[in-house]
């Protein structure tokens, strides 16, 4: 059984995914939410960018 998540919960899952593996149920709920929500897709892209930018910053001069 998967639970429906709203943007608030989805944003937390998107962030915590950088710290721990999401459970299959969480992943499914999240994916379903992302399919319908461009705002959270934007947020997801931005977190990826932030992660990539931070790594770049570490290795930059």
């Amino acid at each position, binding site marked *: 059984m998967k639970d429906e998540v709203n943007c608030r919960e989805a*944003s937390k899952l998107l962030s915590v995914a950088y710290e721990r593996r999401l459970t299959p149920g969480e992943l499914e709920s999240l994916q379903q939410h992302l399919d319908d929500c*461009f705002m*959270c897709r934007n947020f997801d*892209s*931005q977190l990826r960018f932030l992660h990539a930018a931070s790594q770049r910053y*570490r290795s*930059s*001069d």
Partner: protein
Amino acid sequence: MTDPRFAEIESHRPYLMRYALAQLRDGQLAEEAVQEALVAALESLKSFDGRSALRTWLTSILRFKVIDLQRRIMAERVHQPLDEESEGGEEAWMDDLFDASGHWRESPQTWSNPEAALEQRRFWEVFERCLDRLPAAGSRVFFRREIAGEDTEAICKAEGISTSNCWVILHRSRVALRACLEKNWFGKETGA
């Protein structure tokens, strides 16, 4: 005579300063930590086997210097809790972002061509300014986690906080950084 790596080590000083500043929030202390770390690095240069990147090796030395200084500060000052906000409700801060039904009050925008930003020097100035604006705990934890790439468990332990509190701080920092970049870089860039 001089090891060419001396100059190379010196070239990492600005990054190390950023690291120390994020942890200590005090220019003088950060300077002290970096100076001590660089001296220690030069003294033990022979033990650097080149298996890790030089910057990673230097950062690991600096980390201990920073911890030493943090301990010293702790001993001198009354113990300060991490942050007022991080202690208080884990959730209250999200009320500014989401309405009662859990929808974004203000939608995150679509950033156009973010990769191009990484190539621009001015973007990194904005990035650093946004990092500086994070609350103290956020700055320490985010820098160690996302920039230095350290282990979350170790960071939480060093901060003396629960893992879930640590995650909240990270989430909050990410949210604050994305908002800051959107406001100061990606929002302005449109049409440019």
